[in-house]
């Protein structure tokens, strides 16, 4: 492994973590979606670079899926949903931006400490990749818990899945079945989400999860 390939892989995976941080402080739905598209774009570059480094042509397919679906089709479709529902207003966050960012930093530090400590024998590329992937995953989770809006939660979930794809591509020679399944689950997820968004809108006239809480079964 020469220094340059490693550095580029490192830069791309690190870039993904950075974009995950950008997701954390977006306070408008459109901006959130745009940053998510950027997130998917960086993922696609990172996967393509892994495909080149590992000489694994099937990973180019994963990269293409990330580029076409995650950076293209899904953000555009969500854009249209938002437009149709007329909800392109601010996103209510549960805690302040500052606290969220601090929590995010803590999570990244945590995943570095955990992953780098337990993988001293793995090859350096996979090792760093895994640490970054866990950071992306945890930051995605953080986006999910700090948004009260259904679309915000969906974006957090998709960012989380990007972290999984990064981890799967970092594990050299991992069989294709997993990549397909990730893409597959994402498509299904999107179908389900799409249905739900419309149904929720039908029922509640809003996609604010707070409105759902009022109908909690416990309070009947």
């Amino acid at each position, binding site marked *: 492994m020469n220094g340059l390939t490693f550095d580029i892989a490192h830069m791309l995976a690190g870039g993904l973590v950075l974009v995950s941080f950008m997701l954390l402080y977006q306070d408008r739905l459109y901006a959130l979606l745009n940053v998510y598209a950027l997130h998917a774009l960086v993922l696609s570059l990172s996967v393509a670079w892994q495909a080149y480094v590992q000489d694994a042509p099937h990973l180019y397919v994963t990269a293409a899926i990330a580029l076409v679906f995650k950076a293209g089709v899904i953000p555009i479709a969500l854009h249209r949903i938002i437009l149709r529902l007329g909800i392109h207003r601010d996103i209510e966050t549960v805690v302040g931006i500052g606290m969220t960012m601090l929590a995010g930093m803590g999570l990244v530090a945590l995943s570095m400490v*955990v*992953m780098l*400590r*337990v*993988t001293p*024998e*793995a090859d350096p590329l*996979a090792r760093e990749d*895994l640490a970054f*992937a*866990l950071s992306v*995953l945890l930051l995605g*989770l953080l986006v*999910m818990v700090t948004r009260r809006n*259904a679309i915000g*939660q969906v974006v957090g*979930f998709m960012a*989380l*899945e990007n*972290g*999984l794809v990064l*981890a*799967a591509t970092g*594990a*050299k*020679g*991992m*069989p294709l*079945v*997993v990549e397909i*399944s*990730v893409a*597959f*689950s994402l498509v*299904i*997820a999107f179908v*389900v*989400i799409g249905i*739900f968004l419309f*149904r*929720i809108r039908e*029922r*509640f006239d809003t996609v604010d*999860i707070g409105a*759902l809480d009022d*109908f*909690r*079964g*416990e309070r*009947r």
Partner: protein
Amino acid sequence: MIAAGFQAETAVLVIPIVAAIVLALLPSYRLTAQLNVAASLLTFLAALSLFVIERPVPGEYVFVDDLNIVFIVLNAFVGLTASIFSASYVGHELETGRLTAANLRFYHAMYQIMMFGMNLAFVSNNIGLMWVAVELATLSTVVMVGIYRTHEALEAAWKYFILGSVGIALALFGTILVYMAARPVVGEGNDAMVWTLLVEKAADFDAALLNVAFVFLLLGYGTKVGLAPLHAWLPDAHAEGPTPISAVLSGLLLNVALYVVLRFKILLAASPDAIAPGPLMITMGLTSLIFAAFMLYRRRDIKRMFAYSSIEHMGIIVFAFGMGGPLANFAGLLHMVMHSLTKSAIFYCVGHIAQIKGTQKIADIRGLTETHPGLGWAFLVGVVAIAGLPPLGVFMSEFLIVSSTFAAQPLLAIPLVFGLLVAFGALVLRGTGIAFGEPTGSTAPSNASYLPIYAHLILVLGAGLYLPPPLVGWFQHVARLLG
């Protein structure tokens, strides 16, 4: 013989998927309800035939061993009785207009896809495929939970979907870590995901990586098992979906997730340097048990109450497997089977009760043994069974768990028994309230299907009185496998 073996294990997968396609195409709901039963019956027969045929050599993707055969047969059996119950249940829902014919077509097709996903999770020998199967089973139940399209149902489905997805994402990360640990030893590619190969060579795996993987797997699949504090989706999903789905969720889907955790536990046990999974599982199990036991007292919705009871029992089972050793594992397995049978029988009763009374509120249901003796007494027997009273099967398995805990770790027996007693009190209190007293609500005769209820209860009673020696021998063998 090998060909026949392969056919039987393929059959449990092919029948549901073919049935799903056929059911999605047929318009008549009476016919589809019957076909649903027929397909489930065929699957059950195929599952039973796994006992008699010679085992095939474990393949790259599917295999049958002593552990999963128990689960496949249990899964197919409860799947069959639930489909019979479902046929009478959805008929009533259609009459009252809660569901439309188009809903039902979708419902029946999804039912078979769910059965396919669960069977696939059991027979898969590939940890990646196992993950896909659990995901498939989950997604199919998500859409079924939301089928009533009410506020509560949508909220329950959304919560189930989001929490389930997070769980499944953590589980996939754990699976990737297992692959990373296996790769240097087993070699690159598909081999490093084949469970039978992994277990063979687990002793040489990087223990630290395996440890972290197990934490992710336990948290991820533990969400599906409904372990506290990851249980938040479970009561809503059970309470708001159609009752046949509540029965299958409680009786089967929780088992599927637990089965996957057990597979990875065996893997971890085969690696001498890795942490013992026991303490983690014991902690989560006890937390779930005690938490759910207290929550039982505050429930006002009958389905929600039994959902918490499921959390409680999953806690007990995870605790038993966490204790480990031949006796505790045996008890855990037995408890899993007993809980599946009893809990689904209870949900069958509850489904009919809620339909007759037109409500799920516990306070509005009284004196059931007077107005509907068949249903009321069956319900009472179910509640007595799940509360762990002798002579029923759940008593036997709980007794074994408690006594094996006393033998191994007497201090841990204190919180365990405490949790069991608290839950017992709540269940008996609510159960007697529903069964006796001044009758309330509608007294219309029910067109309930008693066959599935009684079949389950007779099996539970039978297991409490006498366990056939071959079955005991089989379970003991599996318990040793679990380490």
